[in-house]
């Protein structure tokens, strides 16, 4: 786990301020505010209907809030320019539906590197190989189509695609929920390593407290469109302040019979 830079008084990397979101006449997010310091991982945890994915979509620019703002390094975000889309990258739950089935991995990555002019043309193939290395996939994966990859491999490709653009913030929306438990672990370990070595700033959306515990410095608990708790991860897991947080912790499935301090 990385050390959060919460003591710093600098402008947060990302700030969500007074966010309200409605789908038609139904308001699903009721004035939500939280901040994410550069280099830290903030987990947004909640059950279905809590509004956590809605917030991820607003941060990603896929959805317009009815009130409130998202600030990146102190600047309120308006319509998404190419630079903003590059700065905020998203990894989704289902890597199969977020990858174009007709493009090989190298085609996906090369197109991004070319369109956003990340590296000179001659270096594109080399950069793609570096990205595979970064997410610990063999270079042979570059010439594969998504359907030829396992779920864990696809999610690594999705992470590589997000990192290709050198984002200022990575939004991970249930990045391991569609994977087997054993594969979940390896993808989470990869995200934790990348976070540490690259100093990534991550907003992690999850319903799974085990995932939050593995990665996050801070925990924001949402219920029915409101924040019910916003605590440091250590305080949250040692002594949650909200009864709802306590209920979530009580309900988390644990391996019965294994010592609790593992």
């Amino acid at each position, binding site marked *: 786990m990385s050390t959060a830079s919460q003591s710093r008084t600098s402008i947060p990397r990302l700030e969500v301020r007074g966010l309200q979101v409605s*789908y038609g006449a139904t308001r*699903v997010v009721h004035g939500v505010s939280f901040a994410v310091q550069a280099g830290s991982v903030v987990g947004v945890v909640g*059950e*279905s*209907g*809590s*509004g956590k*994915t*809605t917030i991820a979509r607003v941060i990603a620019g896929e959805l317009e809030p009815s009130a409130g703002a998202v600030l990146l390094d102190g600047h309120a975000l308006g319509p998404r320019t190419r630079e903003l889309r590059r700065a905020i990258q998203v990894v989704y739950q289902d890597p199969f539906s977020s990858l174009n089935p007709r493009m090989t991995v190298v085609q996906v990555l090369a197109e991004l590197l070319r369109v956003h002019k990340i590296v000179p043309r001659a270096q594109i193939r080399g950069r793609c190989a570096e990205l595979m290395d970064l997410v610990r996939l063999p270079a042979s994966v570059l010439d594969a189509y998504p359907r030829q990859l396992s*779920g864990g491999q696809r999610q690594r490709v999705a992470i590589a695609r997000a990192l290709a653009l050198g984002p200022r913030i990575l939004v991970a929306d249930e990045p391991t929920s569609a994977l*087997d*438990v*054993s*594969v*979940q*672990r390896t993808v*989470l370990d990869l995200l934790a390593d990348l976070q540490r070595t690259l100093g990534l700033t991550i907003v992690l959306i999850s*319903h*799974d*407290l*085990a*995932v939050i*515990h*593995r990665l996050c410095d801070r925990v924001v608990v949402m*219920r*029915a*469109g409101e924040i019910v708790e916003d605590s440091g991860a250590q305080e949250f*897991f*040692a*002594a*949650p302040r*909200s*009864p*709802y947080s*306590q*209920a*979530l*912790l*009580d*309900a*988390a*499935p*644990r*391996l*019965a*019979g*294994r010592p*609790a301090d*593992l």
Partner: protein
Amino acid sequence: MSAIELAGLSIEGPRGPLVHGIDLSVEAGEAIGIVGESGSGKSLTLRSIIGLLPRGVRVSAGQVTTSGRLGMIFQDPLSALDPLTTVGKHVIEICRHVRGMSRAAARARAVELFTEVGLPDPEAKLRSYPHQLSGGQRQRVVLAVALAAEPEILLCDEPTTALDVTVQAQVLALIETLRRERGLTVVFVSHDLAVISQVCSTVAVMQAGRIVERGPTAEVVTEPRHPYTRSLIDAVLEVPRPDAPASDAAADLNAPRTEGDVR
């Protein structure tokens, strides 16, 4: 006497063998978990017990013997229910046609079953359609439908994977209560050893179509003999237990909340 006996069971798909001659016997009243990853053959093994193998997949060798009526619940309760039929009618039809009850008796039984699975306001719920219920309520309805046939064996195929954690905990507790009170034999398939350890006293670990380890859950979890079991245990991430529990946590769970997925 065994409620379920699998002897040298092999299952084959269009592209070759999927399950390789497994033996498994389940005692009446026992709760056994089958844990494994996607492709391990755990769901096929479960489905072979009730004869619900997908098209093109068949038992190629061995025998499945069961003693007792079978019921099954699935991962996705929405696809197990007819969207154009009220949830009450799902249960009433089974009571009438499988149990041979009169219309009035079947209706009364449906209310009893809805009460037993913990659906709030069971009388009114009879008239609800599946889409009007939350995921947890739908899974309770699916349980009531399964129980309507008065099964002695309940087959569970990842029944809580699609549910929120607090709802998952409630449904797991409900399955345990039903097992104890009705003496049900439970076979519970999941990729999540932590979930299985909550419900099952015995666990069988499947890998690539074979059972690699089987034993009392507490022993398998603390002293796994097979390296694959070890790796499954290592994959389970721990959630710490808080030091000081807040007192009114349980009450708060029952407070009104927005249901339904807004993803």
